[in-house]
């Protein structure tokens, strides 16, 4: 039988994160947005509360919670601040390649330490010249004795300035295209790694975003995650698992935008009555609700498929979820600003920040256009 209810533990998780967001994230969101300071203290509290690294399997001392757990956490955090959500959630992106492609010894060495202190991991795929066309990356890993010698640059790397570990996708032979890509676990303290400046972004301003340059970085061969040539597959399988939680963050942000504008519409009076009495406003609110509820269902469905091990369907649904959630959140946030009118355009009210923040969801972890490519490829494949 079809059952849409969350389990008792999932409800407890949601309520706990909601409380965390109300007490720790919402009161600080505007401040961190303004200063674009890294929310280290809040990340540490999120780690302490167990909201990070939940995918680490029980046999390694983790919780082994699936994608649905991250979806629940991210929707709640996204309702507070999408910038903090990104910085808190990106460990999942950084560690999944190792969980999916690594040996037990590699998981012990690189992932398990994340359970005992609030470490950060960054996922390094995108490059200055390779974004949506991730397969064309050109960071080189040259085999030399017991090492790979890493040279090249990565772009838009979340948490790069604070990371302890990078999972780096690079090529051993560019002519092999995606088949030449490998994944390396690169501790951030290796010599030859230099970081760019913290990017001054439109939204999600507190999330640390930088370029990274690798110059003759010696990475031990034992840090190769998966086999030679498996890197691209590992990256795609990782994104299949993180795309949906990212979409859920947008659902949360849109939900917050709807709630703020709904409450405002009940208070704001024009023509002698609350503007919520006008159909023009009511229709905007109703459309917001339709978009948010449908996007959440897609997120749950995608997470459920992946957690059940149905990777192919899950990948398809995660693209549906991300495409819909990102685009609808942008629409909802834009309408929320519209309902607030001139006030909404100022930093006195929270909706302009949401509008700036959600724009990034249409771009990162696969643009909305790339999601359509994935969706169409699935539809047309046979």
């Amino acid at each position, binding site marked *: 039988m079809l059952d849409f209810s969350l389990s*008792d*533990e999932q409800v407890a998780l949601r309520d*706990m994160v909601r409380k965390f967001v109300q007490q720790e994230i919402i009161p600080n969101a505007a401040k961190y947005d303004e200063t674009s300071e890294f929310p280290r203290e809040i990340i540490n509290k999120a780690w302490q*509360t*167990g909201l990070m690294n*939940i995918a680490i399997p029980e046999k390694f001392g983790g*919780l082994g919670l699936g994608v649905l757990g991250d979806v629940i956490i991210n929707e709640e955090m996204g309702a507070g601040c999408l910038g903090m959500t990104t910085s808190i959630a990106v460990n999942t992106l950084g560690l999944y390649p190792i969980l999916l492609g690594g040996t037990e010894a590699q998981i012990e060495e690189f992932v398990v330490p994340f359970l005992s202190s609030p470490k950060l991991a960054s996922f390094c795929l995108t490059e200055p010249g390779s974004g949506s066309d991730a397969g064309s990356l050109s960071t080189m890993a040259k085999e030399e004795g017991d090492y790979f010698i890493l040279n090249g640059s990565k772009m838009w790397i979340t948490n790069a300035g604070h990371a302890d570990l990078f999972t780096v996708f690079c090529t051993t032979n560019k002519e092999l295209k995606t088949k030449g890509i490998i994944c390396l676990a690169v501790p951030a303290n290796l010599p030859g790694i230099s970081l760019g400046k913290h990017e001054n972004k439109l939204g999600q301003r507190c999330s640390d975003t930088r370029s990274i340059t690798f110059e003759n970085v010696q990475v031990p061969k034992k840090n190769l995650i998966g086999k030679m040539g498996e890197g691209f597959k590992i990256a795609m399988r990782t994104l299949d698992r993180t795309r949906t939680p990212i979409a859920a963050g947008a659902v949360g942000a849109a939900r917050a935008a709807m709630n703020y504008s709904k409450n405002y519409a009940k208070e704001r009076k024009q023509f002698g009555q609350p503007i919520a009495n006008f159909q023009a406003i009511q229709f905007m609110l109703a459309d917001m609700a339709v978009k948010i509820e449908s996007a959440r269902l897609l997120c749950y469905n995608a997470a459920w498929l992946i957690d059940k091990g149905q990777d192919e369907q899950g990948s398809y649904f995660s693209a549906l979820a991300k495409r819909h959630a990102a685009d609808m959140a942008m629409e909802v946030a834009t309408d929320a600003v519209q309902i607030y009118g001139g006030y909404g355009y100022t930093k006195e009210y929270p909706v302009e920040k949401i509008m700036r923040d959600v724009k990034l969801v249409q771009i990162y972890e696969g643009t909305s256009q790339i999601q359509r490519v994935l969706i169409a490829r699935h539809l047309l494949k046979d």
Partner: protein
Amino acid sequence: MNIIVLVKQVPDTETKVRITADKHNIETNDIKWIINPYDEFAIEEGLKTKERLKEGSVTVVTVGPDRTVEALRTAVAMGADNAVHVKTDGTLDTYLVSRAIAEVCKKENAQIIFTGKQAIDDDQAATFGYVAELLQYPSASVIVKCDISLNKTQATLEQEGDEGAKNIIETSLPAVIAVNKGINTPRYASLPGIMKAKKKEIKTYTLQDLGLGSETSKTLDSDYQLPPERAAGKKIAGDAATQVKELVRLLREEAKVI
């Protein structure tokens, strides 16, 4: 040290209260239930006490229908070691609730009992006193600091008075200590805690099990009434001088504040 924390499940502070047709209770369908916020301070104080003493166990106790188990699970997710549920149907008055709690405290060999200074639903601030009386323990309320002596037989308590006044109380243990906001910052139920709480076995008693099968409530809430609707604001007409005069008159004669 056996640390007992008494918790009550109450409607969320944002609940829109509706009264049942017989006026003996409020409608409980669709209510989101939370742990009484003052009891959250008590849970945190229990956990902190155990951490300071580096030994002991924290047992949370509640009385109520099945739904109240959720409050116990949240407390376990925060870090409590054990949970006891006295399962009841219908509404019990403070007397009977306190009798049940006192029996549980005896069974659990309570050495210190923490609870919130009051519950935010009925604001009676009564249970801690009843329980202390029934157990013949000392009690103190509105406590914002609690230090337990190394030999665990004494506690030094700081009680909040009016306008920042403080009262320092020395008490022997066991005692019932009702805490106020400000004593600590309650931790969050952690995600690993939630997973652990799911599997935690909760000890359940009925009133019969506690030897209270023939007891009944001594009071009955007979007539709940919602607070009167707030009257609409008044607009004072006229020029500034007239308005000020009228405002002063109203403040003096109607509001009686000057």
